[in-house]
């Protein structure tokens, strides 16, 4: 598989405050993204995700390090023509309507007139904003802005798309819509670089992730390598069973009413719990095996530091 994005030893610091004190934000980031994958860039607030993306796109200049996109230097037109970018909390010229806005941006790609109109129409359809084509962006909701931002990122049919917190601040429906678009991009063979601090999103759509904490990448790899699939414990909710008898089988975190939430660590004990429920004519309401999640991994790593 071809490498689409390669970052080597990226360093960036900001000069802050009155005395222009130097603050290191990125301390030697290295990562590579392969063609066709959805790459998750994961880290807590302030870890340096946005800073990395800004370096890649030439909005800020790193002090040290090398970035290549499709084998070209990241600031070359060849690289930029193949990439798309949706910033976090996107904000656009609010005096323009949705279609005026896309029209303006398409001129920056020197698109031909017919191709342009065709593209704008299909993008507005893709992000489900056909009805708002003539609405000024100032009247757009958060979710609509995110979607029009997605549309502008896709104007040039990029092979590599950078999405900075694309699901931030959206309601469940909005998140699903954006997630569907990302899945679609993946099906079309595009490569997606996605930053987020929300683990569920990344877990659901990413093939590979890198975890950044405090300006350093501390783990990188395929999702199933980072997370073991072994069952950590099983959560059982049941009622009508004597609590004392259950205590020997697992940890009781009693719930409300007569319902009991039980955390069972050994697999053979799960069997016993079920037998006990049957014999004492109780009821099992739910039984959920919990495997390690990205969240556990994440919390573990962040705690270690």
């Amino acid at each position, binding site marked *: 598989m071809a490498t689409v994005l390669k970052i080597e030893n990226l360093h960036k610091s900001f000069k802050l405050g009155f005395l222009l004190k130097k603050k290191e934000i990125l301390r030697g980031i290295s990562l590579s993204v392969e063609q066709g994958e959805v790459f998750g860039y994961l880290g807590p607030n302030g870890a340096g995700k946005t800073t990395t993306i800004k370096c890649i796109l030439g909005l*800020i*200049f790193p002090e040290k390090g090398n970035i290549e996109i499709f084998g070209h230097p990241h600031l070359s*037109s060849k690289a930029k023509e193949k990439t798309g970018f949706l910033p976090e909390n996107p*904000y*656009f010229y609010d*005096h*323009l309507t949705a279609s005026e806005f896309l029209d303006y941006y398409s001129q920056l790609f020197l698109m031909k007139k017919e191709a342009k109109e065709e593209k704008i129409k299909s993008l507005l359809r893709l992000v489900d904003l056909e009805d708002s084509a003539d609405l000024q962006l100032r009247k757009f909701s958060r979710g609509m802005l995110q979607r029009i931002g997605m549309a502008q*990122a896709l104007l040039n049919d990029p092979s590599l798309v950078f999405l900075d917190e694309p699901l931030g601040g959206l309601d469940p429906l909005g998140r699903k819509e954006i997630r569907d678009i990302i899945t679609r991009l993946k099906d079309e063979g595009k490569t997606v670089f996605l930053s987020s601090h929300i683990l569920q999103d990344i877990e659901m759509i990413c093939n590979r992730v890198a975890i950044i904490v405090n300006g350093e990448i501390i783990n990188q790899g395929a999702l199933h390598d980072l997370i073991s699939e072994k069952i950590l414990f099983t959560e059982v909710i049941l009622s009508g069973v004597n609590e004392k008898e259950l205590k020997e089988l697992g940890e009781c975190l009693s719930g409300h009413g007569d319902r009991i939430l039980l955390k069972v660590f050994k697999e053979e004990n799960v069997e016993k719990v079920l037998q006990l429920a049957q014999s004492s004519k109780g009821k099992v309401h739910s039984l959920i095996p919990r495997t390690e999640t990205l969240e556990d991994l994440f919390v573990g790593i962040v705690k270690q530091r």
Partner: protein
Amino acid sequence: MKIKAIAFNTFREAIRDRILYLLLFFAAVCIIFSRLLALLTVGDKVKIIKDVGLSSLSLFGALMAILIGTGLVFKEIDKKTIYTIISKPIHRYQFLLGKFFGLVLTLFIMLLLMSFIFLALVFFHTFTIEWEMLIAILFIFFELCLITSVALLFSCFSTPILSSIFSLAFYLIGHTAWGIETLIKKIPPGAGKTLARFLYHFLPDLENFNFKTEIVQHLDIPSEVYLYSILYGIFYTLFVLIIAVLIFRKRDFI
């Protein structure tokens, strides 16, 4: 092409700015006020109307250039609209030139509107359209281009308020360059004199674009003088734009 796209968007944004119309309104008030002033003074009424009118054009044109020009780049960075532009295949100098031409286009149209009011007022007094006024106005336009480039330069690294103050100082000092000249003669040799000399050579002489008196008084102006002023304007503007680009190219957008 890309510059054109940015210029037109800048134009579209600028003409939706309310401050533009406020200034246009005050310019109109000033031009018409010159009529009142003419009534109160002895001497050639038409000359006073022309004098005050042309001065208003220059002043309000400069205010428009400064108040809009200083916000141009700052706003794009502040509101982060620049992120998605710079990440497209476009050079930073193209962005800056687009902004420049967009504002120049806006000022051109505003100057046209003000000139119309001015020429109409003159027409009511002389019953002729005095086309030679347009020469004076053309040079005001050259001056506005230069001021736009200066405002843009400041807005590349400073906030709108500071940039406005700097640009306004540039405008005022530029029109009183002769003051610095006399200052040089008066102060004794030393650091102060060197500084004044430096300022005198570095700051532009905006009086080069001032043909108001000559044209109002119907004085003859040799064509070399016109040519000199035109070249002066073009080269100074280019010079300032190049510095602006050099600064803008290295900037971090954080």
